[in-house]
């Protein structure tokens, strides 16, 4: 086992995976409290076209992902309420983007292999330069989240009151979606476009059902994200796991832990109200 950890590609996978898990844990918490989990899904599909386009241009797919998800994030943020009308229009935009991605990939010679790795992630094949990019953007996202943490939390729980108290709710919303875009781009490298939910939303969805207090829920969400990623990579590289894909392990763990928590936690509808009241208490004190 320790011999395995000395391989550079495994070290790269652990470093990048951990950074992504931490940022995704925090962003996922806000996605849930803001009711925007679908935006994460949509942004990752839009990112697929970007990643595939970057391949055609001979650029690193991460660059294409970042460009597409950030601009889509800004677009969704500026359009604001439109995303709630999610079903048909967003679905068709996602379809268009996936179609574009299919076109770009067919233009690229390594057709299937590259498509597969963008769709389902290739953390074990991550390059040194991608680890570097992931590190920079993860740290930047983390710092940005710290800077806007309190107003973002406030506006996520009670938009009207936050607005009345002078919090720039709209601007925060746009900034947050840009951060979601960056996080999605980073997460795609670990679990791929199609399994983004397992790392971005899964840990936070489990954590918010167990802990109502925001900081505790975020901490648990980060912990779960790291756990899934580490165990996933470990199982994939060790003999026990039978050489199955990392993203499958992360998806399975994320679901296996979410399911019993979801079924046995009784705080279904009250979660939001409770969290709101606990927050307004803490902000009042």
């Amino acid at each position, binding site marked *: 086992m320790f011999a395995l950890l000395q391989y550079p590609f495994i070290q790269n996978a652990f470093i990048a995976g951990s950074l992504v898990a931490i940022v995704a844990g925090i962003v996922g918490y806000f996605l849930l409290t803001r009711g925007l989990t679908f935006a994460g899904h949509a942004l990752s599909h839009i990112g697929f076209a970007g990643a595939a386009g970057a391949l055609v241009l001979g650029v690193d797919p991460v660059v294409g992902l970042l460009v597409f998800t950030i601009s889509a994030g800004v677009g969704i943020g500026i359009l604001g309420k439109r995303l709630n009308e999610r079903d*048909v229009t967003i679905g068709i935009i996602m379809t268009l983007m996936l179609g574009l991605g299919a076109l770009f990939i067919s233009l690229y010679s390594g*057709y299937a*292999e590259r*498509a597969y790795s963008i769709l389902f992630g290739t953390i074990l094949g991550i390059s040194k330069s991608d680890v570097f990019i992931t590190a920079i953007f993860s740290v930047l996202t983390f710092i940005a989240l710290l800077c806007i943490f309190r107003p973002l939390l406030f506006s996520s729980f009670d938009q009207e009151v936050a607005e009345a108290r002078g919090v720039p709710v709209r601007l925060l919303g746009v900034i947050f979606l840009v951060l979601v875009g960056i996080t999605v781009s980073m997460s795609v490298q670990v679990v791929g476009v199609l399994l983004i939910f397992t790392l971005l939303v899964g840990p936070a969805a489990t954590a918010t059902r167990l802990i109502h207090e925001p900081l505790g829920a975020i901490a648990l969400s980060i912990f779960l994200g790291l756990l899934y990623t580490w165990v996933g990579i470990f199982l994939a590289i060790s003999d026990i796991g039978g050489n*199955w894909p990392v993203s*499958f392990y992360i998806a399975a763990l*994320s679901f296996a832990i979410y399911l019993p928590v979801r079924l046995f936690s009784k705080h279904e509808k009250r979660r939001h109200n409770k969290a709101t009241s606990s927050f307004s208490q803490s902000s009042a004190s």
Partner: protein
Amino acid sequence: MIELFQQPFVQNAFLAGTVIAVVAAIVGYFVVLRAQAFAAHALSHIGFAGATGAALLGVSSLVGMFIFTFLAALGIGALEKKIQGRDTEIGMILSFVLGLGVLFLRLYTNSASEAVGVLFGSILSVSAQDVVLILIVGIGALMSLGLVFRPLLFASIDPEVAEARGIPVKFLSLFFMVVLAVTVTEAIQVVGVLLVFALLVAPAASAQHITKKPFSTVLLSIVFGLVFTWSGLFLAFITRFPVSFYIATFSAMNYFVVVYFSHLAAPHRLEPLHHPHGEK
């Protein structure tokens, strides 16, 4: 040009594409009417696990998809009320199912092109046998939809009133889910798991912005579906770009143009749908 149409794989692609476009357009009308676009999306993802699981067992991927989507349809139909608006729960289940698909794929083959075929469609490799199956299943789906057309329409537009008048709303919704599952499986053949929206939802959603009458909406939606599929196939044969790219692009462009112009024509179009049973 004519030589092209003499090749069997081209004929198969056009035959299958035509059947699927018609079935998807009609079923899609109800999907849009019943606001079940997300169910269509979910069923297609579940189909991915079915297709790859079938490959693992050495069964035809079409059979695997039918079984998986059929079971999922029963589940979604039974839980219908409970899963509305639950993005997180649905997202978690879908991701898990996709993850399973990835696993099946890895166990079966290391070739990624298999996966890409299911995800983005492989109409050009449809065999004559598949065409027959698609035709039979498509006709079956249309006939069963024809049997329940009026009550289903009623139940879709106004479930409460329909229930009060003794229409078995719950049964119809389950029944429709199964038809939807079959249609999704068929549509996956042409456009793939990821682009099912392009054939199933986009034509009907566009048609609904143009006309409000049920029958003309269905007709228009069939016309859209056929035009997208035929021109997509045609261009794909000439240019060698993927069919699903053309179909997705045409249907999306058409949708946005239609929405744009219908907003221009009537800015306040948010009133409820025309009620087919009497004035209301």
